[in-house]
């Protein structure tokens, strides 16, 4: 189940090489994006066809988003916008970092140590098929506060995925590297540091990409049902009070956050895995 690290489009190799082809691709991208926004504008703002009439208008949403004095109190020039952004981003960063450090350690230990695997595997198998969002009520019951419940749910989403991919990563390492290390006289610690960790890194980073997306996903759901602030909470509140333009602003912000956070992981992965060279990671 090797997820593609970068998506090669049809004939991406030569197209990426020639500057002319790159310009054409750029204009096509602009064309595609324009068509998307134009259809939003025409369907909702101009003709108000069918149910599209209910949706927030593109022009009004944009005006609200960049207005210094927004109708519903939230735009990129208001403090409230940044308060929600900070609340959500803070939770994701915090939960993600804890989940990843714990998940990678557990994943490597259980991919490597027989005892550890035998203990962890059954508990993991018990918990894994349950969708993260189905944990929401239980986590709220167990955790002392609503805030800690939201963080715990965001954590859970990334935790399982990281463990699983790290374990897969350790198991994907060719036996031959362990043998080479043994005959070169590596200590157990050296094998861990120079064979297990770098060898599992490609899978770990595929896992981190998925885990980051899962974090935002789980965060929004938990903020909706039990949050008191944050982008997800505000999406729902804006819907509830029929402030649809604010809702659009928040959804767009969530998209941007998701994009930036996954781009950071992609960059970091490409940097840490320079050794994959031209043969693999070069196009990413």
């Amino acid at each position, binding site marked *: 189940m090797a997820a593609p690290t970068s998506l090669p489009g049809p004939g991406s190799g030569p197209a990426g090489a020639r500057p002319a082809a790159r310009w054409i691709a750029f204009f096509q991208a602009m064309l*595609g994006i324009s068509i998307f926004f134009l259809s939003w504008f025409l369907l909702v703002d101009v003709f108000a066809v069918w149910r599209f009439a209910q949706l927030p208008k593109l022009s009004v949403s944009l005006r609200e988003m960049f207005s210094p004095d927004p109708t519903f109190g939230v735009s990129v020039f208001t403090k409230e916008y940044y308060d929600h952004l900070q609340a959500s981003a803070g939770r994701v960063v915090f939960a993600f970092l804890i989940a990843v450090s714990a998940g990678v350690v557990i994943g490597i230990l259980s991919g490597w140590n027989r005892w550890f695997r035998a*203990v962890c*595997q059954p508990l993991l198998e018990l918990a894994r098929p349950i*969708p993260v969002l*189905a944990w929401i*009520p239980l986590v709220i*019951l167990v955790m002392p506060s609503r805030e800690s419940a939201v963080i715990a749910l965001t954590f859970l989403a990334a935790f399982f995925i990281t463990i699983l991919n790290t374990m897969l990563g350790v198991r994907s390492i060719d036996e031959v590297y362990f043998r080479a290390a043994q005959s070169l006289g590596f200590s157990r610690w050296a094998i861990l540091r120079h064979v297990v960790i770098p060898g599992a890194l490609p899978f770990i980073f595929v896992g981190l990409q998925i885990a980051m997306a899962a974090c935002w*996903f789980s965060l929004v759901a938990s903020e909706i049902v039990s949050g008191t602030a944050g982008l997800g909470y505000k999406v729902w509140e804006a819907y509830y009070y029929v402030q649809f333009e604010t809702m659009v602003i*928040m959804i767009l912000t969530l998209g941007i956050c998701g994009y930036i956070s*996954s781009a950071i992981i992609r960059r970091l992965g490409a940097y840490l895995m320079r050794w994959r060279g031209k043969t693999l990671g070069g196009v990413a």
Partner: protein
Amino acid sequence: MKSLATAASAPSATPAERGVPLSAGIRKYVHRHFDLVVGAATLIAFFLAWQFARPLGIPGLSAVEPPTKVVAASWDLLSSATFWTACYKSVLRILAGFALAQIIGVPIGLMMATNRMAFHTIFPVTEILRPIPPVAWIPVAIIFWPTREMSTVFIVFLGAFWIVLLNTIGGASTIDESYRRAALSLGSNRWHLFRYIVLPATMPSIVTGMVVGMGISWEMVVAAEMIASDTGLGYLLWQSFEINAGAQVIVCMLAIGIAGFVSSALIGRVGRLLTPWQGRR
């Protein structure tokens, strides 16, 4: 070096040990079924800790109803019509959303992978929309679709759609060029190429997309039912929480887990039927 060598041979039983048949037998069994024995011990320890969390004062766990209560609650719930109706509703929504994701996602993916113009035009738009967590679309779906049922199905569809699309594009655009050339030199036309090269060569990726997409479908149906519906397993879960029925919360969680597990297994089966040439993993 010498000491290492003897240590390596330690687990094999020496003749002296065979004098005590019972303990040696047990040791041999443990040695051979190590994972099973340790795993079972772990699970037993876990359930005991859970059961006696309150008297023992284990933080966190003591807020959860003990296993005995959960078993009792599951009897009640499994014999009620409410539960089975909820199951039925959720499964229908999953089937509808999942099927739509395949029907729409696979052809678009194939088109994007085989047509450069389509790829460069559509892909950037998906890059903009994809990072938005599907849960955030729930209010938009409620506003847009005339009924709650439709919006739930739409959310399930949306969750699975991206994964289906990405896997189809990934699979179809990495087909080895030599297959295409071999087919052309054997006199294939465009339809033959599609039917006998592109489609089967993409099938393993489509199957991967189906398996992952099914997992996401369950996430989405739980979210949508919890937030914006008054039927289904997700709703039942949330309602159990609201009426403070702790044991029932766990039963619902487990039911959702089992349903997700079974549907993944079924999809895996279907996947093997669709790709009989793939070796068993």
